[in-house]
């Protein structure tokens, strides 16, 4: 499951951060931005995180997930666009030549600790 690996990566990065900043802290909130292109299901991510964070400083933490849409620009009609389906076609002119700007995020924005 994809989300397992992502949760594992998130936990490792935060554990590193804690080591630098506050080794005894307990994490309560994790703020994430997850792009639609990454095919990460928020519920599956929460579940994986819950399992993998046991016996770590993150075991009491909840995930706050902000979903980021797929946006970009069409290289043909030059319009800015937002994809609601994963069909990679420009909603204005149908072109497949798109420059994707957002949607690839697996971004850890911040954590709240106690």
């Amino acid at each position, binding site marked *: *499951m*994809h989300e*397992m*690996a*992502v*949760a*594992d*990566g*998130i936990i490792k*990065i*935060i554990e590193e*951060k804690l080591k630098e*900043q*506050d080794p005894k*802290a307990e994490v*309560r*909130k994790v703020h994430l931005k997850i792009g639609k*292109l*990454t*095919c990460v299901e928020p519920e599956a991510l929460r579940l994986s995180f819950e399992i*993998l964070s046991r016996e770590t400083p993150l075991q009491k933490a909840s995930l706050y997930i902000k979903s980021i849409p797929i946006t970009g620009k069409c290289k043909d009609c030059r319009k800015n666009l937002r994809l609601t389906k*994963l*069909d*990679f*076609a420009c909603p204005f002119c149908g072109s*497949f030549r798109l420059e994707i700007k957002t949607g*690839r*995020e*697996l*971004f*850890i*924005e*911040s*954590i*709240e*600790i*106690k």
Partner: protein
Amino acid sequence: MKKITVLTDLLEANDVMAQENRRIFDRNRILTLNLMSSPGAGKTTVLEKTVEKLGKKYRLGVIEGDVATSNDAKRLAKYKIPVVQITTETFGGACHLDANMIKKALEKIDLTKVDILFIENIGNLICPAEFDLGEHKKVIVLSLTEGEDKPSKYPVVFRNADLLLVNKVDLLPFLDLDLSLLSRNAKKINPRLPSIKLSAKTEEGFSDWINWLTKQYNAKSKKRIASCGRP
């Protein structure tokens, strides 16, 4: 409660490491290919046949990704080429390879003795799509039995691919499958995606794949010479 900013992107961290891998490949003059497919599409069979056909011309190496077993690595080891197994169970059972796993695997290969390195990704068409490993080309293996709609169902992986291998064409007479619809679906997602139809079993169409590989390898060596400033 105290807030700490982290500002780290998992995919960006992966991309950075993938770039490092790519530099290692380039320094060692290796062409690296990432093979992706659904489970059982025929990646390992294609690799076995490729080693049989190309193993004398080029020094080949394989990195095998699997969640739990090393069956595929064993199938390839009999050809006496370097094969490294990555079992992602040790990485939380991940369903895709990432650049860090490849970096670790590279430590186990004598890179000065490899011309073409194949990475067999984990059988899955969703997760590997956005994880750059540092490869030069991404190859999708799709078997006929999977149906015509796979490009539309897994657009991300098709969008990022450099070659589509349509495998198991020997089964075409037994299936109710519209090959042209499959091509149209693939072209919709990725208009420039070249495709090769082959059978790893009967070897029909296999020479097209071998030619494609040879071309990629030659193109890469030429680029290298050009970038060294020599004619």
